[in-house]
Protein backbone atom coordinates (compact mmCIF):
# COMPACT_ATOMS: atom_id res chain seq x y z
CA UNK A 1 0.00 0.00 0.00
CA UNK A 2 2.72 2.41 1.03
CA UNK A 3 4.50 1.67 -2.22
CA UNK A 4 1.47 2.77 -4.21
CA UNK A 5 1.12 5.94 -2.16
CA UNK A 6 4.68 7.09 -2.67
CA UNK A 7 4.76 6.09 -6.34
CA UNK A 8 5.51 8.91 -8.75
CA UNK A 9 2.60 7.58 -10.82
CA UNK A 10 0.04 8.78 -8.33
CA UNK A 11 1.78 12.09 -7.79
CA UNK A 12 1.77 12.66 -11.54
CA UNK A 13 -1.97 11.94 -11.78
CA UNK A 14 -2.61 14.30 -8.88
CA UNK A 15 -0.54 17.03 -10.51
CA UNK A 16 -2.44 16.72 -13.79
CA UNK A 17 -5.83 16.79 -12.09
CA UNK A 18 -4.76 19.54 -9.69
CA UNK A 19 -3.49 21.79 -12.46
CA UNK A 20 -6.80 21.38 -14.30
CA UNK A 21 -8.73 22.25 -11.14
CA UNK A 22 -6.52 25.30 -10.58
CA UNK A 23 -7.15 26.48 -14.11
CA UNK A 24 -10.91 25.97 -13.84
CA UNK A 25 -11.06 27.72 -10.48
CA UNK A 26 -8.97 30.64 -11.76
CA UNK A 27 -11.65 31.54 -14.30
CA UNK A 28 -14.43 31.23 -11.77
CA UNK A 29 -12.51 33.32 -9.24
CA UNK A 30 -11.84 36.13 -11.72
CA UNK A 31 -15.56 36.46 -12.42
CA UNK A 32 -16.59 36.18 -8.78
CA UNK A 33 -13.80 38.38 -7.46
CA UNK A 34 -14.32 41.32 -9.78
CA UNK A 35 -18.11 41.17 -10.14
CA UNK A 36 -19.49 39.04 -7.27
CA UNK A 37 -21.20 36.84 -9.83
CA UNK A 38 -21.53 33.15 -9.02
CA UNK A 39 -21.15 31.48 -12.40
CA UNK A 40 -22.71 28.05 -12.03
CA UNK A 41 -22.55 27.73 -15.81
CA UNK A 42 -18.75 27.67 -15.59
CA UNK A 43 -18.60 23.91 -16.21
CA UNK A 44 -20.81 24.30 -19.27
CA UNK A 45 -18.25 26.68 -20.78
CA UNK A 46 -15.71 23.91 -20.23
CA UNK A 47 -18.09 21.67 -22.18
CA UNK A 48 -18.30 24.25 -24.99
CA UNK A 49 -14.50 24.40 -25.14
CA UNK A 50 -14.31 20.61 -25.21
CA UNK A 51 -16.83 20.34 -28.06
CA UNK A 52 -15.10 23.05 -30.08
CA UNK A 53 -11.79 21.23 -29.82
CA UNK A 54 -13.41 17.86 -30.48
CA UNK A 55 -15.10 18.96 -33.70
CA UNK A 56 -12.10 20.81 -35.02
CA UNK A 57 -9.92 17.77 -34.46
CA UNK A 58 -12.45 15.23 -35.73
CA UNK A 59 -13.47 17.14 -38.85
CA UNK A 60 -10.17 18.67 -39.90
CA UNK A 61 -7.47 16.82 -37.98
CA UNK A 62 -6.20 20.13 -36.62
CA UNK A 63 -4.55 19.28 -33.26
CA UNK A 64 -6.17 20.46 -30.00
CA UNK A 65 -3.38 22.99 -29.32
CA UNK A 66 -4.42 24.85 -32.43
CA UNK A 67 -8.11 24.35 -31.63
CA UNK A 68 -7.56 25.63 -28.10
CA UNK A 69 -7.40 29.38 -28.89
CA UNK A 70 -10.62 28.99 -30.85
CA UNK A 71 -12.23 27.20 -27.89
CA UNK A 72 -11.14 30.11 -25.72
CA UNK A 73 -12.47 32.58 -28.28
CA UNK A 74 -15.89 30.94 -28.55
CA UNK A 75 -16.24 30.77 -24.76
CA UNK A 76 -15.18 34.44 -24.53
CA UNK A 77 -17.69 35.38 -27.23
CA UNK A 78 -20.48 33.69 -25.28
CA UNK A 79 -19.24 35.66 -22.26
CA UNK A 80 -19.39 38.92 -24.22
CA UNK A 81 -22.94 38.22 -25.39
CA UNK A 82 -24.07 37.43 -21.83
CA UNK A 83 -22.30 40.49 -20.45
CA UNK A 84 -23.94 42.92 -22.84
CA UNK A 85 -27.37 41.27 -22.86
CA UNK A 86 -27.79 40.56 -19.14
CA UNK A 87 -25.02 41.41 -16.71
CA UNK A 88 -24.10 44.95 -17.66
CA UNK A 89 -27.62 45.98 -16.70
CA UNK A 90 -27.47 43.95 -13.50
CA UNK A 91 -24.26 45.67 -12.47
CA UNK A 92 -25.59 49.20 -12.89
CA UNK A 93 -27.82 50.70 -10.26
CA UNK A 94 -27.15 50.36 -6.56
CA UNK A 95 -30.32 48.40 -5.73
CA UNK A 96 -29.60 45.73 -8.34
CA UNK A 97 -25.96 45.34 -7.32
CA UNK A 98 -26.99 44.49 -3.77
CA UNK A 99 -28.94 41.49 -5.02
CA UNK A 100 -26.46 40.44 -7.67
CA UNK A 101 -24.96 37.42 -5.91
CA UNK A 102 -28.33 35.74 -5.47
CA UNK A 103 -29.66 36.86 -8.85
CA UNK A 104 -26.54 35.68 -10.65
CA UNK A 105 -27.10 32.12 -9.39
CA UNK A 106 -30.51 32.00 -11.04
CA UNK A 107 -29.36 33.74 -14.21
CA UNK A 108 -26.42 31.41 -14.66
CA UNK A 109 -28.57 28.40 -13.87
CA UNK A 110 -30.69 29.40 -16.86
CA UNK A 111 -27.59 29.90 -19.00
CA UNK A 112 -26.37 26.45 -17.94
CA UNK A 113 -29.62 24.72 -18.97
CA UNK A 114 -29.70 26.58 -22.29
CA UNK A 115 -26.09 25.69 -23.17
CA UNK A 116 -26.51 22.02 -22.25
CA UNK A 117 -29.69 21.61 -24.24
CA UNK A 118 -28.45 23.55 -27.27
CA UNK A 119 -25.38 21.34 -27.52
CA UNK A 120 -27.52 18.26 -26.79
CA UNK A 121 -29.90 19.13 -29.64
CA UNK A 122 -27.10 19.91 -32.08
CA UNK A 123 -24.84 16.96 -31.41
CA UNK A 124 -27.05 14.49 -29.44
CA UNK A 125 -26.51 13.55 -25.82
CA UNK A 126 -24.21 10.61 -26.46
CA UNK A 127 -20.64 10.82 -25.21
CA UNK A 128 -17.83 11.33 -27.69
CA UNK A 129 -14.06 11.07 -27.58
CA UNK A 130 -11.02 11.32 -29.80
CA UNK A 131 -7.51 10.00 -29.60
CA UNK A 132 -4.64 12.42 -29.47
CA UNK A 133 -1.11 11.94 -28.13
CA UNK A 134 -2.21 8.81 -26.32
CA UNK A 135 1.03 6.90 -26.73
CA UNK A 136 2.37 5.83 -23.36
CA UNK A 137 5.86 7.01 -22.45
CA UNK A 138 7.91 5.58 -19.64
CA UNK A 139 10.40 7.74 -17.81
CA UNK A 140 12.21 5.85 -15.00
CA UNK A 141 9.19 3.82 -13.99
CA UNK A 142 6.69 6.65 -14.47
CA UNK A 143 4.12 5.83 -17.14
CA UNK A 144 2.46 8.77 -18.78
CA UNK A 145 0.57 9.55 -21.93
CA UNK A 146 1.58 12.51 -24.04
CA UNK A 147 -1.79 14.20 -23.66
CA UNK A 148 -1.64 14.18 -19.85
CA UNK A 149 1.84 15.62 -19.89
CA UNK A 150 0.58 18.22 -22.35
CA UNK A 151 -2.27 19.17 -19.99
CA UNK A 152 0.15 19.62 -17.12
CA UNK A 153 2.60 21.73 -19.12
CA UNK A 154 -0.08 23.85 -20.73
CA UNK A 155 -2.01 24.49 -17.52
CA UNK A 156 1.24 25.42 -15.77
CA UNK A 157 2.10 27.92 -18.50
CA UNK A 158 -1.34 29.56 -18.38
CA UNK A 159 -1.44 29.68 -14.56
CA UNK A 160 2.07 31.13 -14.28
CA UNK A 161 1.47 33.80 -16.88
CA UNK A 162 -1.82 34.88 -15.31
CA UNK A 163 -0.23 35.17 -11.85
CA UNK A 164 2.74 37.14 -13.22
CA UNK A 165 0.36 39.41 -15.12
CA UNK A 166 -1.77 40.01 -12.03
CA UNK A 167 1.12 40.77 -9.71
CA UNK A 168 3.53 42.64 -11.99
CA UNK A 169 1.51 44.78 -14.39
CA UNK A 170 -0.41 47.95 -13.61
CA UNK A 171 -3.47 46.38 -15.23
CA UNK A 172 -3.18 43.24 -13.09
CA UNK A 173 -2.71 45.37 -9.99
CA UNK A 174 -5.96 47.13 -10.83
CA UNK A 175 -7.74 43.76 -11.05
CA UNK A 176 -6.35 42.75 -7.63
CA UNK A 177 -7.47 46.10 -6.24
CA UNK A 178 -10.95 45.69 -7.72
CA UNK A 179 -11.26 42.21 -6.21
CA UNK A 180 -10.37 43.58 -2.76
CA UNK A 181 -12.64 46.61 -2.68
CA UNK A 182 -14.85 47.85 -5.47
CA UNK A 183 -15.62 51.25 -3.96
CA UNK A 184 -11.94 51.92 -3.32
CA UNK A 185 -11.21 50.86 -6.90
CA UNK A 186 -13.65 53.53 -8.14
CA UNK A 187 -12.13 56.06 -5.78
CA UNK A 188 -8.62 55.65 -7.15
CA UNK A 189 -9.87 55.99 -10.72
CA UNK A 190 -9.97 52.43 -11.97
CA UNK A 191 -12.39 52.01 -14.89
CA UNK A 192 -14.40 49.39 -13.04
CA UNK A 193 -16.91 48.45 -15.73
CA UNK A 194 -14.22 47.95 -18.37
CA UNK A 195 -12.16 45.83 -15.99
CA UNK A 196 -15.23 43.78 -15.07
CA UNK A 197 -15.91 43.11 -18.74
CA UNK A 198 -12.31 42.05 -19.37
CA UNK A 199 -12.30 39.80 -16.29
CA UNK A 200 -15.68 38.33 -17.25
CA UNK A 201 -14.64 37.27 -20.75
CA UNK A 202 -11.19 36.17 -19.50
CA UNK A 203 -12.90 33.89 -16.98
CA UNK A 204 -14.99 32.42 -19.78
CA UNK A 205 -11.95 32.06 -22.04
CA UNK A 206 -10.08 30.21 -19.27
CA UNK A 207 -13.02 27.78 -19.00
CA UNK A 208 -12.82 27.25 -22.78
CA UNK A 209 -9.09 26.52 -22.48
CA UNK A 210 -9.73 24.07 -19.65
CA UNK A 211 -12.37 22.38 -21.83
CA UNK A 212 -9.93 21.98 -24.70
CA UNK A 213 -7.44 20.33 -22.33
CA UNK A 214 -10.07 18.07 -20.72
CA UNK A 215 -11.24 16.83 -24.14
CA UNK A 216 -7.80 15.37 -24.86
CA UNK A 217 -8.16 12.72 -22.16
CA UNK A 218 -11.83 12.40 -21.27
CA UNK A 219 -15.11 11.57 -22.92
CA UNK A 220 -17.22 14.61 -23.62
CA UNK A 221 -20.98 15.00 -23.43
CA UNK A 222 -23.38 17.95 -23.16
CA UNK A 223 -23.74 17.25 -19.45
CA UNK A 224 -20.07 16.88 -18.57
CA UNK A 225 -19.88 20.38 -17.12
CA UNK A 226 -21.70 20.07 -13.83
CA UNK A 227 -19.09 17.98 -11.92
CA UNK A 228 -16.50 20.57 -12.97
CA UNK A 229 -18.67 23.40 -11.72
CA UNK A 230 -18.97 21.73 -8.32
CA UNK A 231 -15.25 20.96 -8.16
CA UNK A 232 -14.47 24.57 -9.10
CA UNK A 233 -16.73 25.88 -6.35
CA UNK A 234 -15.09 23.57 -3.79
CA UNK A 235 -11.72 24.90 -4.91
CA UNK A 236 -12.55 28.60 -4.75
CA UNK A 237 -14.21 28.19 -1.37
CA UNK A 238 -11.17 26.25 -0.13
CA UNK A 239 -8.87 29.00 -1.36
CA UNK A 240 -11.08 31.84 -0.15
CA UNK A 241 -13.66 33.39 -2.54
CA UNK A 242 -11.98 35.82 -4.90
CA UNK A 243 -8.49 34.90 -3.70
CA UNK A 244 -6.69 34.16 -6.98
CA UNK A 245 -3.51 32.62 -5.57
CA UNK A 246 -5.43 30.79 -2.84
CA UNK A 247 -7.61 29.24 -5.52
CA UNK A 248 -4.63 27.99 -7.50
CA UNK A 249 -3.10 26.36 -4.41
CA UNK A 250 -6.47 24.90 -3.42
CA UNK A 251 -6.89 23.44 -6.92
CA UNK A 252 -3.65 21.52 -6.58
CA UNK A 253 -4.71 20.48 -3.07
CA UNK A 254 -8.05 19.10 -4.26
CA UNK A 255 -6.30 17.22 -7.08
CA UNK A 256 -4.05 15.47 -4.57
CA UNK A 257 -6.81 14.78 -2.03
CA UNK A 258 -9.09 13.35 -4.69
CA UNK A 259 -6.51 11.04 -6.25
CA UNK A 260 -5.19 9.74 -2.94
CA UNK A 261 -8.59 9.25 -1.32
CA UNK A 262 -9.87 7.39 -4.38
CA UNK A 263 -6.81 5.11 -4.30
CA UNK A 264 -7.21 4.48 -0.58
CA UNK A 265 -10.96 3.81 -0.79
CA UNK A 266 -12.69 3.44 -4.14
CA UNK A 267 -13.80 5.57 -7.06
CA UNK A 268 -17.33 5.50 -5.66
CA UNK A 269 -16.22 7.84 -2.95
CA UNK A 270 -15.20 10.60 -5.35
CA UNK A 271 -18.54 12.45 -5.38
CA UNK A 272 -19.01 11.99 -1.67
CA UNK A 273 -15.57 13.40 -1.04
CA UNK A 274 -16.14 16.49 -3.20
CA UNK A 275 -19.58 17.28 -1.82
CA UNK A 276 -18.47 16.39 1.70
CA UNK A 277 -15.58 18.85 1.44
CA UNK A 278 -17.96 21.47 0.05
CA UNK A 279 -20.35 21.21 2.99
CA UNK A 280 -17.58 20.69 5.52
CA UNK A 281 -15.69 23.83 4.56
CA UNK A 282 -18.83 25.94 4.49
CA UNK A 283 -19.70 24.74 7.98
CA UNK A 284 -16.30 24.91 9.60
CA UNK A 285 -14.40 27.63 7.80
CA UNK A 286 -16.58 29.64 5.43
CA UNK A 287 -13.78 32.11 4.70
CA UNK A 288 -11.80 29.22 3.16
CA UNK A 289 -8.89 27.14 4.40
CA UNK A 290 -6.41 29.50 2.82
CA UNK A 291 -8.51 32.65 3.05
CA UNK A 292 -7.84 35.20 5.72
CA UNK A 293 -10.44 36.35 8.16
CA UNK A 294 -11.47 39.78 6.90
CA UNK A 295 -10.63 42.78 8.97
CA UNK A 296 -13.61 44.91 8.04
Amino acid sequence: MIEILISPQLAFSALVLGSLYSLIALGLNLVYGTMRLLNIAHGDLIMIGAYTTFWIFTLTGIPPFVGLPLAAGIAAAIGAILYFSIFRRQLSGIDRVERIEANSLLLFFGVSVILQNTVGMMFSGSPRAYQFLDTVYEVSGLMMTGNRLAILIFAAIVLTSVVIFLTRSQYGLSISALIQNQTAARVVGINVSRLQFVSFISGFALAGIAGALVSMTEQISPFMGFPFTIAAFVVIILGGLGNIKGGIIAGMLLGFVEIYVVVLTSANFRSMLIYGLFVGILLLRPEGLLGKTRRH
Partner: protein
Amino acid sequence: MNARLKVEGIRSGYGEIQVLRGIEMLCGEAQITALVGSNGAGKSTLLRTLAGILPTATGRILHGEAEIQRLPSHERVARGIIMVPEGRLVFPDLSVEENLRTGAVNVRARDVWSKTVKEVYDLFPRLLERQKQLAGTLSGGEQQMLALGRGLMGLPEVLLLDEPTLGLAPSVATQIFNIIPQLTESNISILIAEQDLNRVLDIAHFGYVIENGRITMQDTGSALRNNPAVAEAYLG
Protein backbone atom coordinates in the same frame (compact mmCIF):
# COMPACT_ATOMS: atom_id res chain seq x y z
CA MET B 1 -12.07 84.23 -5.84
CA ASN B 2 -11.35 81.86 -8.73
CA ALA B 3 -13.38 78.71 -8.30
CA ARG B 4 -11.87 75.42 -9.32
CA LEU B 5 -14.97 73.44 -8.50
CA LYS B 6 -18.45 74.90 -8.60
CA VAL B 7 -21.49 73.07 -7.25
CA GLU B 8 -24.89 74.26 -8.45
CA GLY B 9 -28.13 72.96 -6.94
CA ILE B 10 -26.93 69.40 -6.40
CA ARG B 11 -29.46 66.85 -5.25
CA SER B 12 -28.50 63.24 -4.65
CA GLY B 13 -28.86 60.37 -2.22
CA TYR B 14 -29.23 56.64 -1.97
CA GLY B 15 -31.97 55.21 -4.18
CA GLU B 16 -35.27 56.72 -3.06
CA ILE B 17 -33.73 58.50 -0.09
CA GLN B 18 -32.76 62.08 -0.92
CA VAL B 19 -29.92 63.32 1.27
CA LEU B 20 -28.73 66.45 -0.53
CA ARG B 21 -31.45 68.99 -1.31
CA GLY B 22 -29.84 71.58 -3.48
CA ILE B 23 -26.24 72.29 -2.52
CA GLU B 24 -24.49 75.46 -3.77
CA MET B 25 -20.79 75.85 -3.13
CA LEU B 26 -17.40 76.85 -4.52
CA CYS B 27 -13.92 75.45 -3.98
CA GLY B 28 -11.29 78.09 -4.53
CA GLU B 29 -8.04 77.55 -6.37
CA ALA B 30 -5.34 76.22 -4.07
CA GLN B 31 -7.53 76.94 -1.08
CA ILE B 32 -8.82 74.84 1.77
CA THR B 33 -12.61 74.72 1.89
CA ALA B 34 -14.14 73.19 5.01
CA LEU B 35 -17.45 71.38 5.13
CA VAL B 36 -18.81 71.08 8.64
CA GLY B 37 -22.04 69.72 10.04
CA SER B 38 -23.44 67.06 12.30
CA ASN B 39 -23.48 63.34 11.57
CA GLY B 40 -25.95 62.56 8.82
CA ALA B 41 -26.13 66.16 7.55
CA GLY B 42 -24.85 65.04 4.14
CA LYS B 43 -21.08 65.74 4.22
CA SER B 44 -20.04 62.29 3.02
CA THR B 45 -22.88 62.13 0.53
CA LEU B 46 -21.73 65.42 -1.00
CA LEU B 47 -18.11 64.29 -1.32
CA ARG B 48 -19.15 60.94 -2.76
CA THR B 49 -21.42 62.68 -5.26
CA LEU B 50 -18.60 65.02 -6.31
CA ALA B 51 -16.29 62.02 -6.78
CA GLY B 52 -18.89 60.20 -8.86
CA ILE B 53 -19.32 57.30 -6.44
CA LEU B 54 -22.96 58.35 -6.06
CA PRO B 55 -24.99 59.56 -9.04
CA THR B 56 -26.12 63.17 -9.22
CA ALA B 57 -29.93 63.36 -9.38
CA THR B 58 -30.17 67.01 -10.48
CA GLY B 59 -27.88 70.03 -10.51
CA ARG B 60 -24.48 70.73 -12.02
CA ILE B 61 -20.88 70.19 -10.98
CA LEU B 62 -18.47 72.45 -12.86
CA HIS B 63 -14.76 71.75 -13.05
CA GLY B 64 -13.47 74.96 -14.63
CA GLU B 65 -15.89 75.38 -17.55
CA ALA B 66 -16.76 71.70 -17.93
CA GLU B 67 -19.85 69.99 -16.55
CA ILE B 68 -18.75 66.77 -14.90
CA GLN B 69 -21.85 65.56 -13.04
CA ARG B 70 -22.52 62.84 -15.62
CA LEU B 71 -18.92 61.58 -15.86
CA PRO B 72 -18.09 58.19 -14.30
CA SER B 73 -15.73 58.28 -11.32
CA HIS B 74 -12.62 57.22 -13.25
CA GLU B 75 -13.01 60.11 -15.68
CA ARG B 76 -13.31 62.56 -12.79
CA VAL B 77 -10.12 61.12 -11.29
CA ALA B 78 -8.44 61.57 -14.67
CA ARG B 79 -9.47 65.26 -14.50
CA GLY B 80 -7.83 65.50 -11.08
CA ILE B 81 -10.88 65.32 -8.82
CA ILE B 82 -9.78 62.75 -6.29
CA MET B 83 -11.35 61.58 -3.06
CA VAL B 84 -9.67 60.19 0.05
CA PRO B 85 -12.61 58.22 1.42
CA GLU B 86 -13.89 57.92 4.95
CA GLY B 87 -12.58 54.80 6.63
CA ARG B 88 -9.45 54.94 4.43
CA LEU B 89 -10.44 51.99 2.18
CA VAL B 90 -6.87 50.93 1.49
CA PHE B 91 -6.42 47.59 -0.31
CA PRO B 92 -5.56 45.31 2.62
CA ASP B 93 -3.81 42.53 0.69
CA LEU B 94 -1.65 44.83 -1.42
CA SER B 95 1.62 46.22 -0.12
CA VAL B 96 2.00 49.90 0.77
CA GLU B 97 3.81 50.60 -2.49
CA GLU B 98 1.27 48.64 -4.56
CA ASN B 99 -1.50 50.66 -2.91
CA LEU B 100 0.28 53.85 -3.89
CA ARG B 101 0.67 52.56 -7.42
CA THR B 102 -3.08 51.93 -7.75
CA GLY B 103 -3.53 55.63 -7.01
CA ALA B 104 -1.62 56.47 -10.18
CA VAL B 105 -3.85 54.47 -12.51
CA ASN B 106 -5.18 57.52 -14.35
CA VAL B 107 -3.61 58.61 -17.66
CA ARG B 108 -2.01 61.80 -16.34
CA ALA B 109 -0.37 60.07 -13.38
CA ARG B 110 0.52 56.64 -14.77
CA ASP B 111 3.81 57.42 -16.47
CA VAL B 112 5.21 59.62 -13.71
CA TRP B 113 4.26 57.36 -10.81
CA SER B 114 7.83 56.49 -9.85
CA LYS B 115 8.59 60.20 -9.50
CA THR B 116 5.39 60.98 -7.60
CA VAL B 117 5.93 58.10 -5.19
CA LYS B 118 9.23 59.67 -4.06
CA GLU B 119 7.42 62.90 -3.23
CA VAL B 120 4.80 60.96 -1.27
CA TYR B 121 7.53 59.16 0.66
CA ASP B 122 9.14 62.53 1.43
CA LEU B 123 5.83 63.73 2.83
CA PHE B 124 5.18 60.50 4.76
CA PRO B 125 8.54 58.88 5.65
CA ARG B 126 6.62 56.28 7.62
CA LEU B 127 5.22 54.86 4.37
CA LEU B 128 8.74 54.40 3.02
CA GLU B 129 9.63 52.39 6.12
CA ARG B 130 6.57 50.22 5.55
CA GLN B 131 6.96 50.08 1.74
CA LYS B 132 6.74 46.27 1.40
CA GLN B 133 4.28 45.66 4.22
CA LEU B 134 0.67 44.66 3.48
CA ALA B 135 -1.65 47.62 4.01
CA GLY B 136 -4.01 45.53 6.14
CA THR B 137 -1.31 45.20 8.79
CA LEU B 138 -0.78 48.97 9.21
CA SER B 139 -2.09 50.99 12.16
CA GLY B 140 -5.07 53.28 11.64
CA GLY B 141 -2.86 56.36 11.39
CA GLU B 142 -0.55 54.70 8.89
CA GLN B 143 -3.53 53.61 6.81
CA GLN B 144 -4.78 57.20 6.77
CA MET B 145 -1.37 58.39 5.58
CA LEU B 146 -1.49 55.68 2.93
CA ALA B 147 -4.98 56.72 1.81
CA LEU B 148 -3.82 60.35 1.58
CA GLY B 149 -0.65 59.30 -0.24
CA ARG B 150 -2.67 57.18 -2.64
CA GLY B 151 -4.87 60.18 -3.38
CA LEU B 152 -1.80 62.34 -4.07
CA MET B 153 -0.43 59.70 -6.44
CA GLY B 154 -3.25 60.57 -8.83
CA LEU B 155 -1.94 64.17 -9.11
CA PRO B 156 -5.09 65.86 -7.77
CA GLU B 157 -6.30 69.33 -8.68
CA VAL B 158 -9.10 69.02 -6.16
CA LEU B 159 -8.64 66.70 -3.20
CA LEU B 160 -11.82 65.64 -1.41
CA LEU B 161 -10.97 64.60 2.15
CA ASP B 162 -13.70 62.72 4.00
CA GLU B 163 -13.13 62.74 7.77
CA PRO B 164 -9.35 62.27 7.51
CA THR B 165 -8.74 62.19 11.27
CA LEU B 166 -11.72 60.08 12.35
CA GLY B 167 -10.67 57.56 14.98
CA LEU B 168 -7.01 58.57 14.97
CA ALA B 169 -4.80 59.25 17.98
CA PRO B 170 -4.51 63.02 18.69
CA SER B 171 -0.83 63.13 17.76
CA VAL B 172 -1.53 61.52 14.38
CA ALA B 173 -4.46 63.86 13.80
CA THR B 174 -2.13 66.81 14.44
CA GLN B 175 0.31 65.43 11.93
CA ILE B 176 -2.44 65.15 9.29
CA PHE B 177 -3.63 68.70 10.03
CA ASN B 178 -0.07 69.96 9.60
CA ILE B 179 0.30 68.32 6.21
CA ILE B 180 -2.98 69.51 4.66
CA PRO B 181 -2.00 73.23 4.36
CA GLN B 182 1.31 72.19 2.74
CA LEU B 183 -0.64 70.58 -0.09
CA THR B 184 -2.15 73.88 -1.20
CA GLU B 185 1.39 75.07 -1.89
CA SER B 186 1.49 72.47 -4.69
CA ASN B 187 -1.61 74.17 -6.16
CA ILE B 188 -4.05 71.56 -4.86
CA SER B 189 -7.55 72.71 -3.86
CA ILE B 190 -8.90 70.92 -0.83
CA LEU B 191 -12.46 70.25 0.21
CA ILE B 192 -12.44 68.71 3.66
CA ALA B 193 -15.32 67.27 5.68
CA GLU B 194 -14.28 67.03 9.29
CA GLN B 195 -15.70 66.44 12.75
CA ASP B 196 -13.04 68.44 14.54
CA LEU B 197 -14.71 71.81 14.00
CA ASN B 198 -12.14 74.15 15.48
CA ARG B 199 -9.11 72.57 13.96
CA VAL B 200 -10.54 72.42 10.47
CA LEU B 201 -11.78 76.03 10.59
CA ASP B 202 -8.33 77.10 11.77
CA ILE B 203 -6.73 75.89 8.55
CA ALA B 204 -9.66 76.60 6.18
CA HIS B 205 -9.79 79.70 3.96
CA PHE B 206 -13.52 79.32 3.57
CA GLY B 207 -16.14 77.13 5.17
CA TYR B 208 -19.67 75.84 4.65
CA VAL B 209 -22.08 74.58 7.29
CA ILE B 210 -24.35 71.82 6.05
CA GLU B 211 -27.62 70.91 7.82
CA ASN B 212 -30.20 68.41 6.55
CA GLY B 213 -28.75 68.39 3.08
CA ARG B 214 -28.64 72.19 2.66
CA ILE B 215 -25.93 74.80 3.12
CA THR B 216 -27.12 77.01 5.96
CA MET B 217 -24.05 79.19 6.61
CA GLN B 218 -20.94 80.16 4.71
CA ASP B 219 -18.09 82.47 5.58
CA THR B 220 -14.33 82.63 5.91
CA GLY B 221 -12.82 80.00 8.15
CA SER B 222 -11.98 82.42 10.94
CA ALA B 223 -15.42 84.08 10.88
CA LEU B 224 -17.15 80.69 11.19
CA ARG B 225 -14.68 79.77 13.93
CA ASN B 226 -15.89 82.70 16.03
CA ASN B 227 -19.61 82.30 15.21
CA PRO B 228 -21.46 80.57 18.07
CA ALA B 229 -24.28 79.53 15.69
CA VAL B 230 -21.84 77.20 13.93
CA ALA B 231 -21.18 75.11 17.01
CA GLU B 232 -24.92 74.94 17.57
CA ALA B 233 -25.56 73.67 14.04
CA TYR B 234 -22.78 71.18 14.50
CA LEU B 235 -24.33 69.75 17.61
CA GLY B 236 -27.56 69.44 15.63
